[in-house]
């Protein structure tokens, strides 16, 4: 799987973007509504913040609220991007104008880049227009201007808009009508609402460095989704998949059967997936190092990690009978079971966390006592548990990799199903291994 960005004729992409922009701004009512929201919301928010400052709301509250207002101001125009992108891709597909465009010598990347650029230009103009109005109306004479936080917010907004646009492209490949696309848009809106809540919480925390970290993560997410959109956006996908969709249940059952048949045995599978396995294996020392540093520097408060550690110690120490073994076993099986669906949603990060999280706790425990003491806590059960976690983590990373890999010829579902089937088949060996590990932990740990 090579990751290279195809070349494009910038003039052609600009032609497509110009037409889309002209189309978007040609409807007067839409323009008026967008401009009104861009101006009215910032002014309304600014009046609220200034009113609070005037009537003695307290500096800390006003400062925090001023930032939440900025978030609110960019959030609404950013959400337009999804509507605009769906209209640009699915709407055009439904009206058959996209078929005409793809029959010209334009490359896919030129059409894609032009359309994405047009949607980004409109959404970001509204976001930043609103933000400028808000900043002028709110911060003038307030004696407080959180530049770093606002830049981080502006940066993460670009990425959120990019992510939503790319998501809309992916939807357009699977939806033939705007109605279907609107329903499928929930798959973008729901995760994005979680992302926005996290962002709002970080703003309320008032730590600019967290917001910068969040912006960094959003850049990665947007890049992955934009790449997925580009890979999936093809003439073949847009035109060919309109037929051949008969008997969906039968097709789904056949796809499921195929995913489980003719797959290699466990050892061959592990050899084929050795790179994800190595990544998962690296999670343990990286996590241990991170946990150790976090423990020494106090970057993560003890009140957060210590309850987790003490509950783990209690689970293995207080009741050394079958109940404890079952509790440990159930906990580990649950972690393995959750890692699979989360791998699809987190692009395989959950697989990395299967080894990183225990490593982090181990490192943190070592920082509070010593490495020898911390390691004695995972011996001898770790000899079975850690390889099992590395295997499960590696296979979950493969599921995640399949979920973010698109090809012009399609086949996304088949690839994800095959990776999922491999994970489930491996559980036949891993679950008994976890049972053995739990027994060892209770008897000898």
């Amino acid at each position, binding site marked *: 799987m090579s990751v290279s960005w195809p070349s494009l004729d910038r003039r*052609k992409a600009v032609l497509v973007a110009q*037409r889309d922009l002209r189309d978007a701004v040609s409807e007067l009512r839409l323009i008026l509504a967008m401009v009104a929201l861009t101006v009215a919301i910032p002014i309304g928010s600014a009046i609220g913040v200034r009113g609070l400052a005037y009537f003695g709301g307290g500096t800390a509250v006003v400062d925090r609220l001023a930032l939440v207002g900025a978030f609110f101001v960019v959030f609404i125009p950013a959400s337009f991007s999804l509507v605009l992108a769906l209209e640009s891709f699915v709407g055009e597909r439904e009206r058959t104008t996209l078929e*005409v465009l793809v029959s010209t010598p334009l490359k896919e990347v030129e059409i894609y880049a032009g359309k994405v650029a047009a949607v980004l230009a409109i959404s970001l103009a509204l976001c930043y227009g609103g933000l400028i109005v808000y900043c002028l109306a709110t911060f003038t004479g307030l004696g407080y201007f959180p530049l770093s936080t606002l830049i981080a917010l502006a940066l993460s907004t670009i990425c959120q808009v990019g992510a939503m646009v790319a998501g809309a492209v992916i939807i357009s490949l699977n939806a033939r009508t705007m109605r279907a696309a609107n329903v499928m848009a929930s798959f973008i809106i729901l995760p994005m609402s979680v992302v926005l809540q996290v962002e709002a919480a970080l703003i309320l925390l008032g730590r600019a460095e967290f917001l910068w970290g969040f912006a960094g993560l959003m850049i990665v997410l947007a890049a992955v989704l934009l790449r997925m959109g580009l890979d999936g956006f093809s003439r073949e996908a847009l035109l060919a998949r309109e*037929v*051949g*969709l008969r008997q969906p249940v039968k097709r789904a059952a056949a796809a499921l059967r195929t995913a489980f048949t003719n797959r290699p045995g466990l050892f061959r599978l592990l050899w084929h997936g050795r790179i994800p396995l190595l990544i998962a294996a690296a999670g343990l020392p990286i996590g241990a190092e991170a946990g150790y540093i976090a423990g020494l520097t106090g970057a993560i408060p003890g009140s957060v990690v210590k309850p987790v550690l003490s509950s783990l110690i209690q689970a293995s120490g207080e009741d050394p009978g079958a109940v404890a073994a079952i509790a440990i076993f159930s906990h580990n099986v649950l972690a393995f079971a959750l890692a699979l669906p989360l791998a699809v949603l987190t692009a395989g990060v959950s697989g990395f966390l299967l080894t990183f999280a225990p490593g982090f706790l181990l490192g943190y425990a070592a920082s509070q006592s010593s490495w020898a003491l911390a390691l004695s806590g995972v011996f001898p059960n770790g000899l079975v548990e850690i390889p099992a976690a590395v295997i499960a983590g590696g296979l979950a990373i493969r599921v995640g990799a399949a979920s973010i890999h698109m090809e012009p010829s399609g086949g996304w579902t088949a690839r994800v199903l095959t990776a999922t089937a491999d994970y489930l088949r491996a559980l036949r060996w891993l679950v008994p291994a976890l049972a053995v590990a739990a027994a060892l932990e209770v008897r000898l740990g």
Partner: protein
Amino acid sequence: MTVLEVTGLAKRYGDVLALTDLTVNVAEGACLVLLGRNGAGKTTALRCMAGVLTPTAGSVRVDGIDAAAEPAAVRERVGLMPELPGLYERMSARTYLDYFGSIYDLPAQIRTRRIESLLELFELSDAADRWLGSYSKGMRQKVALIRATLHRPRLILADEPTSALDPDSARRAWVYLKDLQKDGCALVICTHSMEEAENLSGEIGIMSAGRALAVGDLSELRRKSGLQTRRELRELPTLQDIYLAIVGNHRDQHERELAESRSA
């Protein structure tokens, strides 16, 4: 000189075989008309010939260029007019045609001159600055035809190009297409109108269930159909008679095969 060479063309969508084993050649200035029921594979054939879809098997060459290897080069030489015009509703005809002319890298002066003369030819000059959304069905089809031919392609692929036109406009469109033929342009037309087929055609391909049942000129098809004269009028059978006879024979044979396979 052969403009379009199609050899053993097949296209599969999932488990649906939309087109199989299509072999046709269209020379410079020649016209091939594809006839067939809905779902016969005509649109798929056109999309493959236009370098828009990649064939599952077989090959398509336009001016000797392989559509699978260099699809963009093929699309430069082809003008595709799909069944639905696919026009931008909030754009004037003039701006719309100028946009597509730019995509095909036509110099501004040539673009403007051609657009004006074609708008004039199809009696759209007065409406050229109105939004396309306000156009009638026939007017839209005329704009789509102008768009497909604006860059003077070597090969024009048109799916029912005159289905929405009044008889006078349809005749005008046929004359225009014949003029392009005289300039060396090859045509492939899908249609349900036998009048159109008889008017434009050199060769006719009759398709059913993704297969070309018969390809040839009118006299060859007449021979293949087994119809010598029209029974009632005692004159040569029309293309309509020939088409129904060939498709009907194929259907009878298909049903016989089905019955045999069931009894076996």
